[in-house]
């Protein structure tokens, strides 16, 4: 009897995981939303949601001989407004605290860094399909965005203009489009996002376009049993972020040491109350199949809060 119960539990778990994978394949969230992407967050009509995120990252796995290392931190502010029950607009403004590149040169270790306001991303999502049921919902929402060149794109140091990768802004008008699918219940939430980013040229440099497939699973760890009212929920978060970026172009020529495949696994947590959310994740690389001697990412930490007002 106990054994058959165990088999039943295992089967239920298997189907739940399989269902999550299927959703991920076809397809970002709601209250307990994904941490690594913003598109899955619908906002009530006439209401605002503010999100502040802090990002710290390091890339030091250089396949080349100069032992490059890129590290830095940034704050990302997101403001969402519900135009209608289905239509939400967002503004995303990154501010680079510091981004530093160090590498070996013939005269010793060279260090170059920059910081400042980044490019403002404006995007909008529209819930095209919505099926609500007691304690849950299923939604499909396409989204479209444009990134304006508001950031500093001509940062310099004693050696002259910094390379494009170190500039807080790109100087170019870029676009993003995609679709996000969200399935939420009282116990868990699954979001999946497929997106494409179009980059344009500025200052003789064009970053490669990027296609991304992101998925997020948030599972309620506490309280295990709901006993009425509106308690805070503690979610365990597991996300996966896969992307392919095409090669950058410098003066029309493809840069051989750029672009490629990246796949991250992203565990974390989220504490959700009726007015605010605390969250944190760490993105760990599983696979990085990059072109030439492109620098591999070591880790990215994302932490912050959201508040509804």
């Amino acid at each position: 009897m106990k054994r058959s119960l165990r088999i039943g539990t295992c089967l239920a778990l298997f189907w739940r995981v399989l269902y999550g994978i299927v959703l991920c394949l076809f397809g970002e969230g709601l209250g307990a939303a994904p941490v690594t992407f913003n598109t899955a967050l619908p906002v009530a009509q006439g209401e605002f949601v503010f999100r502040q995120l802090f990002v710290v990252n390091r890339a030091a796995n250089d396949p080349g001989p100069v032992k490059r290392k890129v590290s830095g931190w940034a704050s990302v502010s997101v403001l969402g407004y519900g135009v209608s029950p289905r239509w939400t607009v967002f503004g995303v403004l990154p501010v680079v605290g510091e981004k530093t590149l160090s590498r070996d040169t013939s005269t010793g270790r060279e260090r170059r860094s920059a910081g400042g306001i980044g490019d403002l991303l404006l995007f909008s999502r529209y819930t095209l399909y919505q099926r609500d049921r007691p304690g849950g919902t299923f939604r499909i929402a396409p989204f479209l965005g444009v990134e304006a060149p508001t950031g500093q794109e001509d940062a310099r140091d004693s050696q002259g203009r910094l390379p494009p990768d170190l500039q807080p802004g790109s100087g170019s008008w870029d676009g993003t489009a995609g679709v996000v699918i969200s399935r939420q219940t009282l116990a868990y939430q699954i979001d999946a996002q497929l997106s494409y980013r179009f980059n344009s040229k500025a200052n003789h440099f064009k970053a490669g376009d990027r296609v991304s497939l992101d998925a997020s699973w948030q599972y309620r760890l506490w309280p295990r049993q709901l006993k009425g009212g509106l308690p805070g929920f503690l979610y365990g978060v597991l996300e996966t972020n896969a992307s392919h970026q095409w090669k950058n172009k410098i003066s029309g020529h493809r840069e051989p040491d750029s672009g490629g495949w990246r796949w991250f696994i992203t565990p974390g947590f989220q504490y959700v109350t009726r007015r605010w959310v605390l969250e944190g994740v760490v993105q760990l690389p599983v696979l990085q199949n990059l072109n030439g001697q492109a620098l591999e990412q070591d880790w990215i930490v994302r932490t912050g809060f959201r508040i509804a007002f």
Partner: protein
Amino acid sequence: MGLNLKVDVMKLGLLITLLAVVVGYSSVPHAAEYILSVDGLGCPFCAYGIEKRLRTLKGVQAVRVDIEKGQVVVVTRDPDRLTKDQLGAKVKEAGFTLRSLRLAPENEKVP
């Protein structure tokens, strides 16, 4: 004679006060609770939007959400002026679906 008149005036004053209290009480609208069954509520952060939208309705004194039951209790001091359409519209503005609505019987009221 003078004493009797004083007692009569006191009685009349008491009667008028009592009458004023009764009339005053009957003209104060009685508080009532609507219980809304809302589909799509899955986490606490979602619930804030629905609370805020419902509070914009005139006469609404309090909004309480029971996430497990998917229920939203709306306390109003003016139940005659609050319609199902108004409540449904606010639920919709918050991005959810109103499945049903009923007036709470006295014994279901939460103190």
